[in-house]
């Protein structure tokens, strides 16, 4: 199987700063990690490669430092990495990001599967995967918790999704795009041998020229949405704390809650 896994290097903290002019995240200098849902996607891809053979390519769009995320992915077992890096990609919203990733996927075609994490822990949109599916004209299946079977001869994949009311099984034709969520697939820690092995693997860097994209199609100019303003959410003014022995505080708290009428 030819599997392309999209990963994003995200801040390993939720306390990053915002550039007051462009209203985009200042990523420089922060501790980073592979987005947790993307790690699940990568692990799933590696498991499929175990079963069906083939190649796992990791793809990421980001600043030069995102090479670190690709190196970690190679250490986990991916065969090669591609970094989409170009100053002109900076400030891309989900549409512009999807455009760039789809262009890279087309360059890497043919492929059997595109795997994305459900959402990134910084933007939280969960939009890029489905947008890439649309741009690549492949069927999408979101909220995938595991792959049940792959039939390469029949060009079919069967997956389980976790939805609000339960678990749904879906069959899709290949090539397809999956967005994955947590629950059944757990990323493994690379062994020292895998880390050393990873140093021999290739990471290519592609810019707009390699992707055949116009500068106006991506980055801030190519983004239909724009962040106008960032602010902190309002915090609760005063918490009512009950202090003293539990034999007193518990009944008082229960009184307070029953008196409030929320618990009938």
């Amino acid at each position, binding site marked *: 199987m030819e599997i392309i896994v999209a990963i994003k290097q995200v801040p390993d903290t939720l306390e990053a700063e915002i550039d007051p002019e462009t209203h985009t995240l200042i990523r420089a200098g922060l501790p980073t990690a592979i987005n947790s849902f993307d790690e699940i996607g990568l692990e799933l891809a590696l498991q499929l490669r175990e079963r069906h053979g083939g190649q796992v390519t990791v793809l990421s769009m980001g600043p030069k430092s995102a090479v670190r995320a690709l190196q970690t992915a190679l250490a986990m077992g991916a065969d090669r990495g591609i970094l989409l890096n170009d100053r002109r990609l900076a400030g891309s919203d989900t549409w512009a990001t999807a455009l760039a990733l789809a262009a890279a996927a087309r360059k890497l075609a043919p492929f059997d599967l595109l795997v994305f994490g459900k959402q990134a822990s910084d933007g939280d949109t969960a939009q890029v995967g*489905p947008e890439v599916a649309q741009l690549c004209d492949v069927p999408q299946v979101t909220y995938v918790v595991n792959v049940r079977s792959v039939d390469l001869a029949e060009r079919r994949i069967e997956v389980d999704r976790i939805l609000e009311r339960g678990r749904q099984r879906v069959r899709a034709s290949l090539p397809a795009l999956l967005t994955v969520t947590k629950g059944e697939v757990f990323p493994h820690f690379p062994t020292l041998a895998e880390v050393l092995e990873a140093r021999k693997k290739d990471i290519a860097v592609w810019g707009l020229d390699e992707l055949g994209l116009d500068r106006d199609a991506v980055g801030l100019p190519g983004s239909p949405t724009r962040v106008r*303003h960032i602010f902190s959410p309002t915090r609760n003014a005063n918490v009512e704390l009950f202090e003293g022995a539990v034999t007193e505080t518990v009944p008082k708290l229960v009184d307070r809650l029953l008196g409030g009428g929320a618990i009938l």
Partner: protein
Amino acid sequence: MSGPPEYRDVWVFIETEAGAIADASLEVLGKARDLAAGRGSRTGAVLLGEQVRALSATLCHHGADVVYLMDDPRLAEYRTEPFVAGAHQLVEKYRPEIVLFSATTTGRDLAPALAAKLHTGLTADCTGLSIEPETGLLVQTRPAFGGNIMAEIVCATRRPQMSTVRPKVMPKPLADPSRTGEIIEEQLRIDDAAIRTQVVGFEPEVETVNIADADIVVSGGRGLGAPENFKLVHELAEVLKGAVGASRAVVDAGWIGVHHQVGQTGRTVRPKVYFACGISGAIQHLAGMRTSDVIVAINRDPEAPIFDVATCGIVGDVCEILPLMTAEFRTRLERQLSRPG
């Protein structure tokens, strides 16, 4: 300055559940009416399904001026491709200025696929929507960074402007049974061969109370100390007839299943009362519950960030406090029930 003038009206994509309109869709419909009023235009409800025409009246009662209806066996159950095709057909023909969805699994599957097909902007999981008087633009407010920041976003030139809206934030509108509206029916045009997925099975989650709908959620975290102590959370939930929630830490540790996880990478809940038991209140957890009406925090650490968002609470040992609370509630609620009248 807003976009091309030929785009008008505010639409809502309607989800149905067991033959009825989903509450989350009605919440968005209520909001759509406000926005349409702000633009001097009409509210449209997009109803795609099989044998769903009868729901049109309810949509009009809740504020729809027009119901755009597509009835097709291939729309009986949600799948991306036929729903994107149908929605796309309607948008291309009738040119709404704004299209809204609930931020449910369906909405968050459909909206980005449709937005990409339309090459337009989409903002996810909005908690606020308003029309800016000077520009006529839809101002979309949403949490990012796990709720650590709020962002205000606009889609200045592409149309329609699209958003998915977080459930249980907007109020559900009241029904006015005298309200009527127009029904416009279109035929879904898509080749069967172009539909490349099939639903082959569904297993409902067996749960006494669904966490997303519950009025009361009792959640446990690492402060409980050991997996066997999680039963204290279950006991309180049972007495209060509430749902059980959990922090990511205890779900990852295997104390309880992932369906109970509340937080940025789990479920978002907005109950009347949320009990955070032995939960420190990390930003990622707060993202999933901070808009609850009343938040009760029980934690041994007075500096725990959960106390920054809590309405009330007790600093102490959660394993000591929970059984006492359960007993107290049991006594008081039984007394209330046995009162005459």
